[in-house]
């Protein structure tokens, strides 16, 4: 079989695990912080989104690898 497709699928599938957990932890922390200190919600939300962007970048690297495997 074509191992290319298998590897591409595995790359993005496995690569998404870490960022998934990371984003979950980030949002958990942010929500707890907002729960404790609702006045700071806008600031926390902005920083949470930035943090998610950084965590998500890892998944994007996996996506790039998957795309390279599939198309290149």
């Amino acid at each position: 079989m074509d191992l290319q497709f298998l590897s591409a699928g595995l790359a993005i599938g496995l690569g998404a695990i870490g960022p998934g957990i990371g984003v979950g932890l980030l949002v958990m922390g942010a929500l707890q912080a907002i729960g404790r200190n609702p006045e700071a919600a806008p600031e926390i939300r902005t920083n949470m989104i930035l943090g998610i962007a950084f965590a998500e970048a890892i998944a994007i690297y996996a996506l790039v690898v998957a795309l390279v495997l599939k198309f290149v």
Partner: protein
Amino acid sequence: MEALGFNAGFLLAQIVNFVVLLVLLRMFLYRPILNMLEQRRERIRESLEAAERARQEVVQSQKAYEDELAKARREAQQIIERAREAAERQKEEILAEAREQARQLIARAEEEIAYERQQAMAQLREEVAQLSLEIAQKVIGHALSEAEHRQLIRQFLAEVGESR
């Protein structure tokens, strides 16, 4: 890289496109709107300051009015006080003057009385002497000598003085 879609020409086109868009938006969107916001902020600041100034002025004029009022009241009080003092003083003066005058009148009257009495006394004495002289002349029938007269008068006067 080709397979991912990289193409130097397109990349350059997108960069140029972005720079042009940035310049245009800066000219036609950001500058007018930021200027407008700045202008409005300035306007709001000015009107707030004007309002503050007006409030200050009102407070100041209120204060000035109250000061003026208090001053006027104080002055009126002073005037009344001064008038009262003047009247009091005048009363005292008038009274003192009156008393003085009365005293002077009394003194003068007394003086006059004393003078009159002395006058009367002298006159009386004169008349008594005259009278007694005439009486004596009548009694004796002729005039006594000067010396005898003098002797007689002195004697009489001494008697009269004693009798008094």
